[in-house]
C-alpha cells in the first residue's frame, strides 16, 4: 500500500519533558532575577544548561533517525508543515511589534499632539507637546526618566544598517547556492555555501552589536528613550536574537553536512534552516524600511 503503512511513531520520548523542565526553570529563574532574588541567576543558568543538553540530545536523536531512513516521505511532510506553521507564528509575533510601531507613530503620537480625538488630551496633559517622529514623548524620557530637554539621536539608515542589509541579502544567496549544491550532490559547494552563510550571519550580529554600542554610548538612544527607543530596540533586538538562532541552526546543519549527512531527496533539517533564514531575511527588509528608512 501507500507510505501510510510506515508512518514512524516514536515511543518513550524523554527530551520533551526535559525541554519543559529546562525552559520552566529558566523562566522561573528569570522572574526571580527580575524580583531581585539571589536564586534567580543560578536558576536561570541551570535551566539554560538543561535546555542546551536537551537540544543537543534531541537534535542528535532526530539526525540519527533521519540518517537511518526511519522517516518516510509522509513523515517528512509532517515535519515541513510543522516548520511552516512555526514560521507563521513567528510572523505574527513580529507583526505585534510592527503594528505597535505603526499605531504609535501614525495614531497615538499625533493624538498626544492634539490631533483628532487628542484635542482635550493635549490641552489637559501636555499643552507644549508637538507631535513628531522620532520622539521620546512629552516627558522627554532619557533612560526611562523624564527630563527637561533630553534629546537622543535617531539611527540613520545609511552606513551600517545598509551594509547589514547587503550582508543578509548575500547570505540568502549563499544559502540557496548551498542548497543547489546539496541537490546536485556537490558536497563541497554545500559546505562552502553554509560556511559563507553562517559567517555572514554572525558578521551581521557583530555589526548590530556595534550599532547598539554606538546608540547607548554616543547617541543617547536606549530602550528608555521613549517610544522611539522602545520600538527600535524591541524590533531590532528580537530580530537580532532570531538571526543568532538561525545562524546556530545553520551551524548545526553545517556540522551535519561535514559528517556526510543529507541526501538530495532527504534533507529536511537543511530546508527548515533555510526557510527560517529567509524568514529572518524578510523581517530585516521590513525593519530596514519601516524602522530605519522612513
Amino acid at each position, binding site marked *: 500500500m501507500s507510505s501510510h503503512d510506515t508512518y514512524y511513531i516514536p515511543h518513550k520520548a524523554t527530551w520533551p519533558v526535559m525541554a519543559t523542565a529546562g525552559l520552566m526553570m529558566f523562566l522561573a529563574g528569570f522572574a526571580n532575577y527580575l524580583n531581585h532574588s539571589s536564586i534567580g541567576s543560578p536558576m536561570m543558568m541551570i535551566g539554560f544548561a538543561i535546555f542546551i543538553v536537551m537540544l543537543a540530545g534531541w537534535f542528535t536523536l532526530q539526525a540519527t533517525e533521519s540518517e537511518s531512513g526511519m522517516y518516510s516521505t509522509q513523515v517528512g511532510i509532517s515535519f515541513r508543515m510543522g516548520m511552516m506553521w512555526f514560521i507563521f507564528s513567528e510572523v505574527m509575533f513580529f507583526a505585534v511589534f510592527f503594528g*505597535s510601531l505603526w499605531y504609535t507613530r501614525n495614531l497615538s503620537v499625533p493624538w498626544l499632539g492634539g490631533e483628532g480625538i487628542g484635542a482635550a488630551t493635549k490641552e489637559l496633559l501636555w499643552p507644549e507637546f508637538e507631535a513628531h517622529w522620532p520622539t521620546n514623548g512629552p516627558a522627554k*524620557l532619557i533612560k526611562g526618566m523624564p527630563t527637561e530637554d533630553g534629546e537622543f539621536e535617531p539611527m540613520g539608515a545609511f552606513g551600517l544598517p545598509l551594509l547589514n542589509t547587503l550582508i543578509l541579502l548575500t547570505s540568502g544567496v549563499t544559502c540557496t547556492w548551498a542548497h543547489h549544491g546539496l541537490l546536485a550532490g556537490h558536497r563541497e559547494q554545500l559546505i562552502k555555501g553554509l560556511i559563507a552563510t553562517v559567517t555572514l550571519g554572525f558578521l551581521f550580529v557583530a555589526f548590530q552589536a556595534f550599532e547598539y554600542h554606538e546608540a547607548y554610548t554616543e547617541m543617547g538612544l536606549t530602550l528608555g528613550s521613549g517610544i522611539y527607543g522602545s520600538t527600535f530596540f524591541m524590533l531590532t533586538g528580537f530580530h537580532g536574537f532570531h538571526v543568532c538562532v538561525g545562524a546556530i541552526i545553520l551551524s548545526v546543519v553545517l556540522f551535519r553536512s561535514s559528517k556526510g549527512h543529507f541526501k538530495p531527496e532527504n534533507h529536511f533539517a537543511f530546508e527548515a534552516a533555510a526557510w527560517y533564514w529567509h524568514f529572518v531575511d524578510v523581517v530585516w527588509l521590513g525593519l530596514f524600511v519601516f524602522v530605519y528608512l522612513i
Partner: protein
Amino acid sequence: MSAVIAEHDHHDDDHAHGPEKGLLRWIVTTNHKDIGTLYLVFALTMFFVGGAMAMVIRAELFEPGLQFVEPQFFNSMTTMHALVMVFGAVMPGFVGLANWMIPMMIGAPDMALPRMNNMSFWMLVAGVLLLASTLFMEGGAPASGWTLYPPLVLQTGKALPFAIFSVHLLGISSIMGAINIIATIFNMRAPGMTLMKMPLFVWTWLITAFLLIAVMPVFAGAVTMLLTDKFFETSFFNAAGGGDPVLYQHIFWFFGHPEVYIMILPTFGVASTIIPVFARKPLFGYSSMVYATASIAFLSFIVWAHHMFTVGMPIAGELYFMYATMLIAIPTGVKVFNWTATMWKGSMTFETPMLFSIAFVVLFTLGGFTGLMMSIAPSDFQYHDTYFIVAHFHYTLVPASVFILMAAGYYWLPKWTGHMYNEKIGQLHFWLSAVSVNILFFPQHFLGLAGMPRRIPDYAVQFADWNMISSIGGFIFGASQLLFLYIVIDTVRGGTGEKVSDEVWEDAHKHGLEWTLPSPAPYHTFTTPPTVIPTEHI
C-alpha cells in the same frame, strides 16, 4: 458524517509497542490516546480549581459588604478564575478531545508529530504551575482581570514576571498543539477521507488551530511589552514616553477576540457531531457549517475593538467595529438554524449527551443575542464593564463550551473506557446543571442593566436580591459538577457493568470512523489506514 470502513483491519495486536508500565507511561508517552487522557484529566482538575475560585467570588457577593475576603484577594480570584478556566480548563479540554478523537475520526495511526504532542502537554502543566505559584507570592496573584491591562497590571507585586512567563509557556504549548493538529489533519487522513468528508469536529479544530497559531504569538508579544515596560524602561504603554495604554488593549483584543472563538468553534464541532447521532439524521447543511465556521474565524480577526467602545476611539472606528461585529450573527445564525433543522422530524432520543447539546443550542443562542445587543456601540456604553457583560460571556462559555465538554465526555466515555456511564445520574447531573446555570447567570443580566459594575467585592444594597439568587444558583451548579466527577470515576471503574458495543449509540458507525473501532479503543488504532467509502448517508 457518513463513512464506513470497507475492510476492518485486525493488526492492532501485532504492534510491538504497548504502553509503558507504571507512572513513567504518562510522562514519556507519545500516544495520542494517553496524551488526550492527560489533557482531559488536567482540564477536569482545573475545572474544579477554577470552580473553587468562582465559589469564593459568589460567596463574597452573596450579600453586600465585605464578608470573607480582602478586596485585593477578591480581584485576584476573578483574574485567576478566568485565566485558569480559559487556559487550564476549556482550551485543554478541547485539545484533549482533539488528541483522542481526530486520529480516530480521520483514520490516522496517531498525531503527526507525537514527540511534540508530549511537549505541548507538559508545557501546559509548566505554564499553569507558574501561574498557580503567583497565588502564594508577596503582593498576591495578579488582580487586574484576565485582560492584564496596563497601567493597573504593572502594580502587581512579585507575581508579575511569573504571570507573564506563564503566558509565554501557555502560548508555546497552544501553538505546538495547534501545529500538530494542522499537520495531522492535512497529512494523516486515510485514503478516501477527503476534506469535505471530515466530521465537523475535525473541521472546526482545523480552523481553531489556525486561529491559535495566529493569535497566541500576539498575546505573547503584548505581555512581553508589559515586561519591558515594567523592568526595562520601555514606554509602549506609557503616554509620557509617547506610548499609549490603549495600544495594549488593541493588541490584547486582537488576540482576545479570536481567543473566545478558539473556545467556541470546537464546541460547535462537538455539537454538530452529537446532534445528528441522537436525531438519527445526517447533519443538515454540512458544507454550510464548514463555510460558516470559516467565516466566523475570519470575522474574529476584524472585530476586536468592540471590547473597547468606551475607550475613546474615533467615531469611524466605533462605526466600523459595530457593523463588522453585527456580521458575526449571520454565520452563527446559519449554525443554529442547521442544528435545529438537523433535529427537525428526526427520531430523537434524549440521552445525556443529547440533553447537554440541546441545552447548548438554546442557551448559546441566548448568549449570542446579548452579544448582538452589545455590538451596538451606543447601547454598549450602558453595558460596558457591568454584570451584563459577565452574564453574556458566561452564557457563551458555561452552558455552551462547558456543557459541550460534558456532552463530549458522556458521548465518548463508553468508547474510551469500554464501560457505560450511569444514565440516571447523568440525567440528574444535566437537569441540576441546566436549571442552576440559569439561576446563576440570568439574574446577572438584570444586575448589569441596573448598573452593577464587574470585578468589585462589594455593591450597593439595591443589587442584593439578585446577587443572592445568583450565588445560590452558583452553589447548586458547583455542587452538581461533583456528580460529573463521580460519573467519570465510576465509568472508568466499570460503570453500569453493561458491555458496550463497538458503535455504542444506535447507528453511530454511520456518523464517524471512531464507532467502527472496538470499545474500549485499543492502544493503537488504524496502524494501517482504513478505506473510507462514502455512504448514501451524506
